[in-house]
């Protein structure tokens, strides 16, 4: 009982910390964006390059192997998946390097250190907004209108933020001690892309495992394992609400959501414990 109260107080503290430091986070995020695109003619438009290029590659790939995209045009389907995926991938990997990258500040000035991972995620949130604009353009081109379920989008984006933070907190703290983390993470994340429904829709996996039972007795277990990846349910749900006029795919989200619910507090606690020694070790 008292443990539960303690938890609630912890959560309130975390939120209070974020609110107290919102100006700092906003200013640092603004700095990140300004510095990155300062002397570039195209500026922040460069953030469109990655999703559009990957989309083109996937379209070419699809022309060889044939991926059934249901009744949604494949380019829009994969672009929707990519906008969420790239946001997750970049905010997680930026978050992991954020603490080490701000070593000079950490050695000199105190403020709650979670500001750094939070700033990385906020920075990427701006780029996600720009990607959404391009997604809207594609949807308009193909004549797809988002339905009432599109109101779920903020919730799904918030969920993605939590996912990125789960990796960013523990990763950035570990990275202070072992720089291996920031080297290994991009590799692991690009592996994870193939395990998430980015190139292909989730429906294909579901058909293979749950309907065709392709792996025999292991099929449902494998499907469970697949949906333990929070991105699996998340990306499918995003496509549902934006493109298919359907509610989020709660069945596919549940395992990953529970998994995150366990990992996020652990990751944050580890970060707070390691925080005190950042200035000595970094």
């Amino acid at each position, binding site marked *: 009982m008292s443990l539960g109260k303690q938890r609630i107080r912890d959560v309130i503290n975390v939120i209070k910390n974020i609110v107290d430091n919102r*100006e*700092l986070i906003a*200013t*640092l995020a603004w*700095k990140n964006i*300004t*510095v990155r695109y*300062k*002397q570039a003619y195209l500026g922040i438009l460069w953030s469109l390059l990655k999703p559009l290029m990957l989309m083109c590659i996937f379209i070419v790939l699809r022309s060889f192997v044939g991926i059934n995209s249901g009744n949604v045009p494949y380019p829009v389907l994969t672009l929707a998946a990519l906008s969420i995926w790239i946001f997750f991938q970049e905010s997680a990997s930026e978050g992991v390097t954020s603490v080490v990258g701000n070593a*000079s*500040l*950490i*050695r*000199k*000035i*105190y*403020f709650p250190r979670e500001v750094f991972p939070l700033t990385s995620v906020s920075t990427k949130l701006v780029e996600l907004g720009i990607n959404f604009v391009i997604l809207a353009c594609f949807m308009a081109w193909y004549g797809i209108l988002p339905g009432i379920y599109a109101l779920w989008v903020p919730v799904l984006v918030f969920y993605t933020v939590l996912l990125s933070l789960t990796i960013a907190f523990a990763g950035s703290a570990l990275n202070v*001690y*072992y720089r*291996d983390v920031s080297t290994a993470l991009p590799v692991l994340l690009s592996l994870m892309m193939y395990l998430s429904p980015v190139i292909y829709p989730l429906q294909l996996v579901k058909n293979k495992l749950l309907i065709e039972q392709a792996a025999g007795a292991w099929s449902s277990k494998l499907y469970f394992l697949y949906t333990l990846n929070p991105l699996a349910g998340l990306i499918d749900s995003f496509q549902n609400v934006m493109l298919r006029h359907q509610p989020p795919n709660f069945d596919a989200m549940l395992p990953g959501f529970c998994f995150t619910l366990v990992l996020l507090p652990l990751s944050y606690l580890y970060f707070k414990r390691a925080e*005190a*020694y950042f*200035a*000595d*070790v970094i």
Partner: protein
Amino acid sequence: MPIIEVDHVTKEFQLGQLVSLKQSVVNGLNRLVGRPVEERKPFKALDDVSFSVEKGEVLGIIGHNGAGKSTLLKLLARVSKPSSGRVSVIGKVAPLIEVGAGMVPDLTGRENIHLNCTILGIPKKEIAWKFDQIVSFAELEEFIDTPIKHYSSGMKVKLGFAIATSVDAEILIVDEVLAVGDLAFQRKCFDRMQDLIKRQGRTVLLVSHNIRQVERLCSRVLLLDHGKVINDGAPTDICNVFYEISDKRILDTKLSAAARSGRTLTSGNAEIESVVMLDKRGNSVTEIEYLDDVEIRVGYRILADLPDPIFSIGVHTTDFLYLATSQSIGSLSTGTLLPGHYVLSYTIHRFPLLPGVYSLRLGVALGGSFQPVFYSENVLSFQVSGKQINRAVQSQYREGFVGLDGEWELTAREINNASSRVAIAK
């Protein structure tokens, strides 16, 4: 109620490289099964430090490089945590540790002001009205929209100082920032600091190697050495102790310098065997008291006949400024010296050089022709200490080398106020 309390604080660092991933996994496993773990010896940057600071106090922290000053400031700024003990700080702390920590070269001066003010915790609306004040203090009106990568280093430091001192914090932590910019700006910084301290009654912690500045600004000084507080008290006393230690250190490095600098010329007919300095009681010393009697004893080995040699002994500073020389001509007649071993003794009464580190030079020349036989500089370094001299009078740039032996007197010729007719003498 003290505003800062440091209670038996120890800060340890592991020496050497970080443990590899493999090693920490092995250590973790060993710890799990209860086997002893190979630990490296920790380095104590701070060793059982305790003190407290009252509101409005200006505390100077002095000590040699590596004494633990910066570590202490980091603990007080909450950047780092102590290994054991407790640090409690009431109120907001503004760190001026190496100003410009958050400067971004690609951003303009204006953008950097906004960024750094936010990092230092100044709310947005306050930045708006502090902005002009910062710009005019830093004298950067013309360049405020230029990226600071194009600034000169002086301009950057000015901007950093202006931002850092605009924070409204109860406690200011200042680490070697007053030595910034040109002379005029240094003066301005100094005035700003004095204004913050004296008029606004802030609590200030000041770390500096500029001892004179510490003496002038602080109300109390803490002397750190090898992580320990070795002295805590009035600025003048503590700074004197620090000067003594500094001099001793210079002497130690002089003595340990294997390859002695300084010229040595010899004709091969004479060489030194030993040089010692003796105090009143006849003990061999390297530290003498100001105005004490001292005897210098030099052992010479003479290898050829030397007709009427003239001996000389001189004193120079560590940077080879000749201060005094004494020659035996006219006061010591030896006739022709035959080959053999000799001991030369020279006694100085009331050694007149002011406290500091000095060195001896020695020479032997032939009488009549003044042809040099032997000459060597920097043969023996020694320190003059002056317990009875107040170093407060001596500035950071020393006031000279020689003490004068005189009498002071002040007599009143005419006093206009008849009620307070006093004669002041001596």
